[in-house]
């Protein structure tokens, strides 16, 4: 009957608890946040694990050429007639056609915009020249880079972690807020003496609990099953995840600040997240996009989060080295949060 209550009975603790209960009582949410990233990482990890170097398919139009080309182990050589070889090249069954040229030479036919074609041409040429007696002036040997840290799975796990941080923060904020608004629950809450900042803060706090589990699950899975390295300091990693999750939550808050229906906020969230999934380097390096787009891509929060995670996990970067990524995330946090506070619709 008095104000002498335990802190657990206060509004912030109660609202955070309620957020948490609502979340764990939603089986679908549990699946998307915890199970799905593991399935994805497992699937992709297995698909790309210890992938043998590609054997390229090519065609030769004379038996002599076919024989000398077969000395190259990385080529799978078929001997075809001129027209059959032409067809195979056109339909992509082979990457290169090798035929006799004028005055005892060789002609390579391939698509020069196709990396496989270019690779096959180099390998084929080497085999043809060696068969004709060329001796390399410099001896060379190969060393395979397949140890932890440089495999595809090592690249992928930080990407998935970043994607998961973004997805769960934005979905978690967006749906919960718009749902509360749609059901007039938000209006009911502001009709009580509930402190409004506690309402928003409870979302942030419940995110933090979730964050520990989310990061732990994905990273633990990657480290235990695939031996993904964790080379940076755990403190820096925690700081990075925290900052990333906060700025994605702020973005989620901004996206949910006006919408009245789940449909509206879903569309908004997808249109913001989808481009980032593609350009921010979740599955392949963001460097593949043209140079003029790089400044924009680097300024996106997901790029910053993923780059930061890769620097920390794979290269053991120090806090100072992570400063640019942290700066980008901090910028998004401040801008989105202040905009959201201005725009937020309480009814």
């Amino acid at each position, binding site marked *: 009957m*008095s104000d002498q209550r335990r802190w657990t009975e206060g509004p912030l603790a*109660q609202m955070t608890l309620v957020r948490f209960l609502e979340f764990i009582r939603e089986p679908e949410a549990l699946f998307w946040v915890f199970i799905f990233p593991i399935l994805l990482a497992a699937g992709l990890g297995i698909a790309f694990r210890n992938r043998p170097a590609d054997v390229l398919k090519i065609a030769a139009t004379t038996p002599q050429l076919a024989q000398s080309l077969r000395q190259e182990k990385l080529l799978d050589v078929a001997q075809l007639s001129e027209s059959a070889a032409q067809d195979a090249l056109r339909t992509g069954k082979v990457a290169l056609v090798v035929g006799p040229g004028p005055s005892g030479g060789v002609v390579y036919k391939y698509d020069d915009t196709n990396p496989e074609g270019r690779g096959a041409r180099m390998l084929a040429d080497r085999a043809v020249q060696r068969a004709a007696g060329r001796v390399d002036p410099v001896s060379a040997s190969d060393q395979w880079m397949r140890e932890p840290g440089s495999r595809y799975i090592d690249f992928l796990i930080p990407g998935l972690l970043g994607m998961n941080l973004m997805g769960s923060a934005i979905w978690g904020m967006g749906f919960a807020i718009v749902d509360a608004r749609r*059901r*007039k*629950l938000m209006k009911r809450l502001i009709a009580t*003496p*509930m402190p409004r900042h506690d309402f928003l803060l409870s979302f942030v706090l419940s995110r933090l609990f979730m964050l520990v589990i989310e990061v732990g699950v994905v990273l633990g899975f990657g480290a235990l099953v695939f031996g993904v390295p964790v080379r940076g300091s755990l403190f820096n990693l925690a700081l990075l995840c925290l900052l990333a999750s906060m700025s994605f939550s702020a973005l989620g808050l901004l996206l949910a600040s006006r919408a009245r229906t789940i449909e509206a906020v879903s569309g908004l969230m997808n249109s913001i997240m989808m481009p980032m999934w593609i350009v921010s380097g979740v599955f392949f390096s963001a460097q593949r996009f043209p140079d003029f787009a790089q400044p924009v891509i680097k300024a996106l929060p997901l790029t910053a989060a993923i780059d930061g995670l890769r620097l920390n996990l794979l290269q053991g970067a120090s806090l100072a080295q992570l400063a640019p990524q942290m700066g980008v995330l901090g910028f998004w946090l401040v801008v989105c949060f202040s905009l959201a506070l201005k725009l937020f619709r309480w009814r």
Partner: protein
Amino acid sequence: MAAALEVRELRKAYKDVVAVDGVTLEVRAGECFGLLGPNGAGKTTTIEICEGLLDADSGSVEMLGMRWETDSERLRQRLGIQLQETQLSEKLTVFETVRLFRSFYKAGPSPAEAIALVQLQEKQPSRVGTLSGGQKQRLAMACALVGDPEFLFLDEPTTGLDPQARRQLWDLIEEFKRGGRTILLTTHYMDEAERLCDRVAIMDHGKIIALGTPRELIGSIGVEHVVEFSAGGATLLTVSDLKKIEGVREVTTENGNVQLQVTELHRAVPALLAELNRQGLPLTELRTHSATLEDVFVTLTGRRLRDE
């Protein structure tokens, strides 16, 4: 008695409709005041302005001697509010929901006590999603009561409930009245207003068209009772014959069923029976009811409160 709520010249317009058009009313401490009117009359807009959830275009609201602009923090602690169509989280239990609302108030009953107030004890561990409509409405009441409010706002508390659940809720509201709380409720059920409210304001098109105790309002239309009867060959009775009967003011007939609006039941009924007896007509049916707020609304606007 002191006024718990004073509303003066309230006006609120949305894009193309004037929802509240100059409403002035006063709710006295300890009374149950009803805003009665059809859907779209401006009841909810009025009550939400009083609750500090909506800003009025003009006019003033004074709650418990305070104003929303300056004392909203203190006011919120002393009000209990139940909104129309709030959907509480279905995944929480009854207890968790009430405990959450209790956490917002400085003083008040414990969550379990609040749940007992609305007689939901046995549903305490159940998820909100499993409750019936009436139980959900009682849970909403519990959430409005956890701050031990002096003033209770109930917006359409029984809309959409079955008759039994409505009666249960009425009993609860009467309990709150006995507890000395001031209540402002809106409804479009005239029987609800008649049963619960000490005073009623009838609203239509954003204006208050009548205000007083249910008895005063019914008295104001000059008709106290309605007598309905049918008798074998009652069609033989002429309207002018019936009008001659003492206290009868209006006569309508429908399918051999005759309806009389009368002022004094104790004189009109014996006179009617004597007249039937004199003409040798056997009475097959006789019903009387007192005039209701519905009849008041019909008299004032020419329309029914709601289309059945």
